[in-house]
């Protein structure tokens, strides 16, 4: 098991390395000149040049990558004279558009995204698995039909459209909810909750649709397994059979998929954050796209990739703990 974890972790590190080099390369090869964007209306080529040097964009790509990586571990100062700005480790670059270290921008936005992601995650897992299980156990009856219709419609809804409709309905027409105005959970837990309930629900409804299907199909598949038939033939009570035999086997793979979905969401719920005006990583990204703020884009891409790679490794390792077949091989 130790060997397995070590190997998996090593693979994750290698993958991260490749992903980071690739990300860096693609953004540095773009025609977008990050230095040109640091300049106002009364811009002169000299100013662009000066800023290019200041931000290190004059260096060859590998050197830029090197200093970026070094910056992550020891911090980095942008500019050499006194007007230079120091970003402490982990430095993820400097946004000339926002005049801030990207790391501090990320530190501000990540908790928001995490609030959205974890809340939605809990909701959709509970709802999706409950409805999926119900549908599988009542196959062909109305809960199953309901789940099927619900999930196919849910999957078909483009998230921004559902988000817009929910705002239109709950906020503007019926005024049941206030317009989402995010505050930190430590500041005002109630407002935090009311601001997030709509985005959570929208995200959860969409993802739950997938999990309803996964759960339903997983359970039906497991029900067809010989060991479940043997369980019945043994005379296992229904409840025990469902929990110990069916759910245990059906939900183990779903848990792993869920881990990766959560990681994707942690990298920024781009559409949801845009629709509901939540100042998270996704909205940071969109703002950076609009302003062509490359340092932020590089950082958010890397962070998202980090989440995905780590989640993949974590899930693989967890699978080892959850499934004895993997563990003892």
């Amino acid at each position, binding site marked *: 098991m130790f060997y397995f974890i070590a190997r998996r972790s090593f693979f994750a590190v290698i993958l991260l390395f490749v992903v980071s080099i690739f990300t860096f390369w693609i953004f540095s090869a773009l025609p977008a000149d990050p230095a040109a964007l640091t300049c106002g209306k009364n811009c002169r080529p000299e100013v662009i040049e000066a800023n290019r040097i200041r931000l290190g964009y004059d260096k060859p790509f590998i050197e830029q990558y090197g200093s970026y990586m070094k910056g992550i571990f020891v911090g980095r100062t942008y500019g050499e004279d006194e007007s230079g700005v120091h970003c402490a480790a982990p430095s993820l670059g400097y946004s000339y558009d926002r005049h801030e270290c990207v790391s501090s921008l990320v530190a501000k936005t990540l908790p928001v995204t995490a609030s959205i992601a974890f809340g939605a995650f809990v909701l959709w897992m509970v709802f999706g698995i409950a409805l999926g299980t119900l549908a599988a156990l009542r196959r062909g009856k109305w809960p199953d039909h309901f789940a099927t219709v619900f999930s196919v419609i849910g999957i078909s809804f483009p998230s921004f459209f559902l988000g817009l409709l929910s705002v239109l309905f709950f906020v503007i027409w019926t005024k049941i909810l206030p317009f989402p105005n995010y505050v930190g959970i430590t500041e005002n837990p109630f407002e935090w909750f009311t601001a997030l309930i709509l985005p959570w629900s929208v995200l959860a409804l969409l993802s739950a649709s997938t999990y309803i299907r996964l759960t339903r199909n997983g359970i039906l598949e497991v029900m067809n397994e010989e060991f479940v038939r043997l369980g019945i033939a*043994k005379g296992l009570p229904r409840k025990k059979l469902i929990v110990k035999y069916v759910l245990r086997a059906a939900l183990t793979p779903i848990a792993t998929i869920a881990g990766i979905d959560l990681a994707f969401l942690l990298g920024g719920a781009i559409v949801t954050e845009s629709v509901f005006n939540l100042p998270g990583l996704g909205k940071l990204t969109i703002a950076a796209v609009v302003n062509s703020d490359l340092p932020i884009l590089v950082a958010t891409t890397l962070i998202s990739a980090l989440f995905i790679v780590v989640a993949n490794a974590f899930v693989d390792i967890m699978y080892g703990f959850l499934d004895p077949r993997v563990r003892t091989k």
Partner: protein
Amino acid sequence: MNTPLLSVRDLHVNFGTSEGDVQAVRGVSFDIDRGETLAIVGESGSGKSVTASAIMRLNFGADIRVSGSALFEGKDILSMGEEEVRKMRGSDVAMIFQDPLTALNPFYTVGNQISEAYTIHHPGTSKKELRALALDAIEKVGIPEPVKRIKQYPHEFSGGMRQRIVIAMALINQPKLLIADEPTTALDVTVQAQILELIGVMQEENGTAVILITHDLGVVAEVTERVLVMYAGRLVEKASVIDAFASPTHPYTRGLLNSVKSLDSDRHSRLEPIPGIPPSLIDLPTGCPFHSRCRYAASLNGRCSTEVPELKAVGNSWSACHLPVDLLAAPIKESL
């Protein structure tokens, strides 16, 4: 005379599919006594496994209809309540499946699963007792190092070993009837014999009756006393093993035997496969289901394709064929 342990009468199993109604079992009746061994043989889709499942009430699905009766010690399994059936399963009637590789729950140790089989029907048994029972059960089915093995997971065992564990589990409650649904099909030839022997030994020890479902005539010859031959959901022949092999009456049974090589014959007898394929259970032919493949059907002036033959006594056997009894009873070598 004692009542039989299990008495199946006029069993029908239909299930609806998107293709149409499948008539998997059509009017099967048979008895089995305590301690007796009965084989049901037939090809794929002949309905033998469905029959076994029906006895255990293991048929489920959106659109499945079972009719007839299956009296187990005088009580009809088919009309029992769910809870009653559950209590019967695993304690009075146990079952062994075809594929030991998938029959065990991969998430729990074999010790756990064996003791679970016991504790379901004996709640409140202490852990210590359960462990002792599991160890004993594992040892009895010939698995070495039981102390170490009960802590292991199914995937750490070979196929034969797993089938032994399934057998240990099936017999831990000393059932009165064991239904073995192709218990050896998925195993290596050498292991097959061991497993069959094990079933035989355990049967003797516990006085358990066994219904052995198989397509393997070799197995039938070795371990059972009586044989039921099924074709397209119907019983076509009922006989003792000796009669069935020595003087098969139904043309299908004869065809089956002809298509199997005899090991003890000195000469290499020519293999004669039965021509044609079994009929679709959705779109069943009228009359005798075998008539399209039967070389005698033509001699009966179309009776075979219109009238369903009933089982009738032919010597010591029962056979469902329109051919006259004397022809059916004629020795096999004669050119029927």
